[in-house]
């Protein structure tokens, strides 16, 4: 379970990056945070990862307050980011081994790493390739493999489809749907409304740090997400929703 309660972040320069965010992502659910650049999406992810402390409110992972118990919360969180890179000089397998050990998994073998990479659709030749030689889509898949090996119930994904070609993006989307089906709680930041509509069980739209709209999948059956988004950006008043 991923939960934000009145979560706010104001930087020392006075900039309010996030204003009283409320959200809840249950196991087996995907929540997409939409918004323009600078809307507060990455700040939200950073708050859940404990990279920055909230100025008000709480970020909870499985009921654990990230600010007060960051390590316990991190043990239950996996992260895949847009700019996440791996150690380019190491092979994909060695990267996974390192990250798995950081996550406390010392019981895994090469066969396990290979299996994880196979699961996310990385081709066999990539297993021994250096991470620096991988395509962006494969890097993202490797990130998902690392997240899987961590066995975290909560996944935070910051723009996981950004910069991918449509085929690679579709493959990642498929992966994320499978993770949801396996009971993971996924919080995604996205800019692509088409993928958001397909993926999200719930969406929230952020603008200048404020959540100005939230909709469930059922609600979106009767409304156009694209229209909602554009209206929200233009400042058209609508009920905020769930």
């Amino acid at each position, binding site marked *: 379970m991923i939960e934000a309660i009145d979560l706010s972040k104001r930087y020392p320069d006075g900039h309010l990056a996030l204003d009283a965010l409320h959200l809840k992502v249950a196991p087996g659910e995907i929540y997409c945070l939409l918004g323009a650049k600078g809307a507060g999406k990455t700040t939200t992810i*950073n708050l859940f*990862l404990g*990279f*920055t402390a909230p100025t008000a409110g709480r970020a909870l992972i*499985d009921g654990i307050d990230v600010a007060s118990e960051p*390590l*316990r919360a*991190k*043990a*239950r*969180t*996996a*992260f895949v*980011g847009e*700019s*996440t*890179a*791996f*150690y*380019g*000089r*190491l092979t994909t397998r*060695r990267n996974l081994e*390192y*990250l798995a*050990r*950081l*996550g*406390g*998994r*010392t019981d*895994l073998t090469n066969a*396990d790493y290979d*299996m*994880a990479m*196979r*699961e*996310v*659709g990385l081709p066999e030749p990539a297993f021994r390739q250096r991470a620096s030689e991988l395509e962006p889509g494969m890097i993202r898949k490797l*990130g998902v493999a*690392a997240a*899987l*090996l*961590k*066995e975290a*119930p909560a996944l*935070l994904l910051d723009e996981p489809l950004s910069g991918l070609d449509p085929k690679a993006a579709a*493959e990642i989307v*498929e*992966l994320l749907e*499978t993770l949801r089906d*396996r*009971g*993971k709680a996924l919080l995604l930041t996205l800019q692509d409304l088409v993928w958001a509509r397909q993926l999200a069980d719930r969406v929230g739209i952020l603008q200048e740090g404020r959540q100005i709209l939230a909709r469930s999948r059922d609600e979106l059956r009767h409304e156009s997400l694209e229209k909602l988004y554009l209206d929200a950006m233009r400042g058209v008043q609508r009920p905020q929703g769930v």
Partner: protein
Amino acid sequence: MLSAPQPIAILEPSPLPARRPRAGAAVIVRHELRRLLGDLRFRACSLLIVTLFIVGAVAAATRFGGESRAQEALVRDYRNRITGVTVDEAAEILHPAFRPPWRLALLVDGGQTQSPDAATQGLSALVSPTLGQTHSGNDRLPVPQPLDWMFVVTLVLSMSAFLLAYDAVSGERQDGTLRLLLSYPVPRFQVLAGKLLAVWICLAAPFLTGALLSLLIGTLWGGLRWNGEDAAKIGLVLLLGLWAALFFTLAALLVSSLTRDPATSLGVLALLWVTAVVVVPALGGLLAHRLAPIPAESEINQRIAAIRAQVHGEYGGRESRWRGLEWATTDDFALERISARAENRRYALEDATRRWVLERKLGQAQLAHTLASASPAALLQDLAERLTGSGLWRDRSFLGQAASFRGTLAAWLRALDARDPRSPHILFFAGYLSRRPIDPAAVPRFAFREIPVRSGLAAARPALALFAFETLALAAAAFYSFSRYRP
């Protein structure tokens, strides 16, 4: 893709194992070591460190052999000169006191090859002492930097630490791996400690290898023989080098944790390196030159002239009346005794002036050292010199021991002269002492006593405390800065 429905244990939803690594720092050390060992930077730095150790050891051992031979030749020459001489002739012979070549020069040269290592002095007040070097060289050549262990520590190890660690934090941030790394349940202090330890190991390994090779070259090829005291000093310098590696790595990690990109880290560290290694020591010398000037030659000459005038005044112009024995015996050498007292008085005053000039020079050098110690590189050099009893400490010790050697010689000659009833006992003027021959084998020999390690440790205590404080402050700053670093 996930189309294969086969259940795989590791990927199955689990009842929240929430694992946390037991030794996150150890995992990071292993990873960082793997990364660094495959890096060209590590190989280049290691090669440079080990090569410098080897070259430095060969140079020091060669120099040691050359200096030893030069001193042995001078000792042989001295033995020839004192063979067959009488007591009164021995009073006017220049007796040398040689500071032996520095056995630990390959560790801490401390300027020993440039400072005077031969003090010659006669017992007669009419003979002026000299202070010089046993080995000759071309003074038109620039003074070469000694390639000793401390050169490696202060210049190369510091630079290597900066090169290996400048991107440890800012580089990972730029590469995008830091966010991933910090999303794992490893405390940040363990992350930084892991990086610190890995870089330190990468510095310690070539340092220790080079040091071992250096000692082997010194022993097997250079014929250097070390005693227990030397072994303790070698151990202390090794520890100091390892400590310095930790210090410089902490500095690099602090800068890396304060900057957002590795290029800036490297730029800042390059500036710091130049400041610490070049600018501050140079400023220390310049400031010492201004704050504690040494007397000019003209000032010394004026003082000498004043001393002569003073003695002339004190003795009313009777200070230089030396007669033949046939005349002197008529009044039991009355005039000669006055002249001898006057000459001895002049010698004592001039000797005090010489010591004052030397003290001013040593004081100026000490002040330059102290001022330069604002730089950690110079502080380390100072620490190593104190711990091993090298540098100014050895110079000062030699001058003190050489001065007291004159007293030993004087007591020996006085005793010989006293045994001769026919001697007028006018000390120590040739012609007015015993004419009996001396036994060359009985002439006291100068034996330089190196500064013991216990005294070195005592002298190094304030500098050790300062360096420990600087290390702790740096560690606190680095860990605090990294704890607040936004990935």
